[in-house]
């Protein structure tokens, strides 16, 4: 075990081989440490699995299991069923990327939710198949460049829309489904803690930038994630049994261009009139989110300004990792 840090478990610790500036590693570290040691993690195939386990070395410090790409939710169902009725308080957590959630893993996820398994499914969404070299997924946003949705003479990037994954899972009449972002730790923390207080199937969709696939500076991962929220392209909301129960109001509204310009995957949109038309389309998608969830006028406990605030002494940490911190 690695216990360099007395103030967090480091459920996912050093020595992993994620790209420099990886948003998914960042997100998984936050989520893992917020959940703490008393849990079993089941991971779908994907970057997170590949970069954390390598030649008999593991960066995980929680019990962790990987099977195949599509079946994480089903494997977790089995783990949870196996632990049912036994002494021990450990919880079950499923981790998958957007491919393992939106696409290949959707069926097993649906089954897990429908059967009411007591498990938290966490989707780390980086909006494409990064592990295999940036191919488009059902989560890739409209007009984004990937290796299988390349811009060209007849193309402005991905033709289709990003799936509304939250609505899909929420339609299962499940106890809790929420979106979160690495850029807003206090919000992420509140949502993980809420999810862990609840029983039954829960879904947390964490926006996790990918410097490689999105073609932005490694140092810009948090900034990009923040702008996705502030533009309205990735609204932070909570649904309970299908009803919207929480909305993060936008303290300030940013044009989508602020977000898109940081990323090479949207570079082609700034070249000509066709691109400009797609920019308006993307702005309309953000506007639709803003309208749908009332992102500008929601009367909520906090907004992006408050949730994004830094303050002396921090905005909360993690459950003590071990004796040293208590």
């Amino acid at each position: 075990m690695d216990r360099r840090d007395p103030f967090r478990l480091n459920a996912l610790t050093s020595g992993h081989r994620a790209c420099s500036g990886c948003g998914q590693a960042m997100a998984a570290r936050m989520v893992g440490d917020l959940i703490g040691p008393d849990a079993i993690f089941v991971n779908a195939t994907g970057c997170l699995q590949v970069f954390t386990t390598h030649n008999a070395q593991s960066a995980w410090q929680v019990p962790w299991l990987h099977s195949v790409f599509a079946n994480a939710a089903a494997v977790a169902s089995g783990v949870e069923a196996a632990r049912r009725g036994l002494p021990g308080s450990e919880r079950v957590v499923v981790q998958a990327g957007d491919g393992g959630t939106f696409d290949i893993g959707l069926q097993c996820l649906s089954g897990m939710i429908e059967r009411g398994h007591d498990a938290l499914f966490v989707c780390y969404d980086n909006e494409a198949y990064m592990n295999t070299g940036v191919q488009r997924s059902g989560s890739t946003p409209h007009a984004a460049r990937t290796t299988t949705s390349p811009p060209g003479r007849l193309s402005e990037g991905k033709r289709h829309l990003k799936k509304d994954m939250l609505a899909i899972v929420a339609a299962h009449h499940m106890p809790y489904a929420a979106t979160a972002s690495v850029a807003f730790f206090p919000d992420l923390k509140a949502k993980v803690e809420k999810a862990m207080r609840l029983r039954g199937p829960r879904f947390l969709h964490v926006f996790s930038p990918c410097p490689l696939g999105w073609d932005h500076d490694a140092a810009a991962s948090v900034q990009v994630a923040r702008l996705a929220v502030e533009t309205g392209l990735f609204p932070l909301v909570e649904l309970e049994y299908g009803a919207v129960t929480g909305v993060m109001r936008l303290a300030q509204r940013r044009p989508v261009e602020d977000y898109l310009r940081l990323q090479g995957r949207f570079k082609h949109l700034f070249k000509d009139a066709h691109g400009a038309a797609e920019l308006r389309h993307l702005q309309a998608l953000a506007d639709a989110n803003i309208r749908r969830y009332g992102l500008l006028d929601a009367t909520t406990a906090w907004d992006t300004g408050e949730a994004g605030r830094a303050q002396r002494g921090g905005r909360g940490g993690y459950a003590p990792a071990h004796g040293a911190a208590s």
Partner: protein
Amino acid sequence: MRRQLEGSRAVAEAVRLCRPRVIAAYPITPQTHIVEHLSQMVADGELAAECINTESEFAAASVALGAVAAGARAYTASAAQGLLLMTEVLFNIAGLRLPVVMTCANRAVGAPINIFNDHQDSLSLRDAGWIQLYVESNQEAVDSMIQAYRIAEACELPVMVCMDGFFLTHTFEPVELPEQAQVDAWLPPLRFSRALDPVAPATLGGGSEPDNYLEYRRAQHQALDHAADEIVSTAAAFQSTFGRTHGALIDGYRLDDAERVLITLGSVMGAVRDTVDALRERGERVGALKLRCVRPFPAAGLVHALRGARRVAVLEKAISAGAGGIIAAELRAAMHAAGIALPVDGFVGGLGGRDLTPASIEAVFAASAAAGPAPIGCQFVDVDAADEAARPGE
């Protein structure tokens, strides 16, 4: 207790005796009755297990995987398309070395879609890393299920008990069911050394690289090789406790002075035995051999058992399209490797539920009576001669 039971029910009773804590399945004919019976047992409080009715076979195998990884004894069952939908997970279970036990209610694989029995489904998965046991009767299905858990857990390898769909699963015949206390004593609760545990948070299913993957696979292969000993000793231990045996890796019938031997798998073996008796009555020096264990492949045992034979016929209900009979090819390879020039006639029949009648079996014996080398590839049993010239689209 000896009872007259449908095969599916008998298997369900055997599974109950093994006390799995998680059962996961998706319905597919002819596996359904097994899971229905188990569901009823759970509903009636006769079996303390979680029945997880998944949204696909792929998920069912995955649930079993997760359950065993979490330290619970688990069970699943499938067939045909369902088994193939599990394929990725079945390889994965084996690679993870998880002692999952399942029943394959053997059925043909489409297209054309066909719900009836043959062995194409499980034999197509012979490379998945599972121990595969093929049973002849419902009694053997019951006994093999109990043995399977013991073998699986001793070897940390998954075991697939293959029983013929309908021919066994839907057939009422007498079975002797052991007492629960007997089974409990013989099959202690699962203590899986690598179970996921927050107290000792290990990583299961991590990645590997070119510099060690080969060693993983070699270790898996060796484990399957060594499992042969465990299968033999388990069968012996079972016999000494329960008083029954069905053979371990193979089961010979009237081989002592047999010049011609028919090798087959599964429920057709009963009719083969009857046919051997009938031919013996007519003075033919024939024998039969049931291949109970396909993986690990008992090459040495076969070479030894067939040392006196002059010619061998393999009758199998599956085909490696473009190559011929699967078992026949493996047997030929084993004999060749042992330096024995034994003609092996490959017969493929009974596909998609076509009944292998006593007459069919006699015909196979007759066809395998010639002298000289056996033809390469396979011959089809009971094939419709009028169909010979048929072409796709005609």
